[in-house]
């Protein structure tokens, strides 16, 4: 399964500035996030990070399909 992963805000500095293509057999958004954290040696923080899928909010247990675009939001810091 091939998906695209996008990072926002400070997660760009921690994971990738640009969207990445990701080959994975992960089932859920949560699986993908934990694989990413392991690869980048980051502590997962699902209490703070919010996932999106195809430009809509989703929950961590959302099942991922081939071609999906997954995004991860850190806490907002506008204003």
């Amino acid at each position, binding site marked *: 399964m091939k998906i695209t992963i996008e990072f*926002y805000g400070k997660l760009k500095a921690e994971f990738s500035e640009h969207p990445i293509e990701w080959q994975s057999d992960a089932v859920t958004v949560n699986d993908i996030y934990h694989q990413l954290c392991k690869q980048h040696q980051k502590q997962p923080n699902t209490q703070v990070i919010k996932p999106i899928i195809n*430009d809509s909010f989703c929950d961590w247990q959302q099942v991922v399909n081939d071609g999906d675009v997954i*995004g991860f939001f*850190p806490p907002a*810091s*506008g*204003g």
Partner: protein
Amino acid sequence: MFTLSLEPLEAEALKAKVINPQSGGFVAFEGWVRNHNQKKEVTELHYEAHEKLAVQVGNAIMQDAMNKFDINLAYCCHRVGRLAIGDMAIWVGVSSDHRKAAFAACEYILNQTKAKVPIWKNEFYQNGESGWVEANL
């Protein structure tokens, strides 16, 4: 209504969106880019947003404010892109029959926007470094 803008915010044009003859009061908040943060000299800010979800979440906040407070009109606009010191980053304006509701709604919209709307601030410093800013609620 909640909007994002790549262009400089014009307070008078935004004010015109909430003025109405029913209202006896108008409260506005302008957030500006300041030249310092956490003892560092700031030279500019870059605001990044997820446009679709920022507008969606922002408009939900505006609707909440309309339901929660006795106000007539409310508008919030947030800049995105590169901002210089002194530029306006956010404008919130509320009109109401009486002042109390307008003050309360204005603060509510600002606080909710800072906490929930997917917008992120990257600060650039005098020493050439930069850093994504943590939420300042």
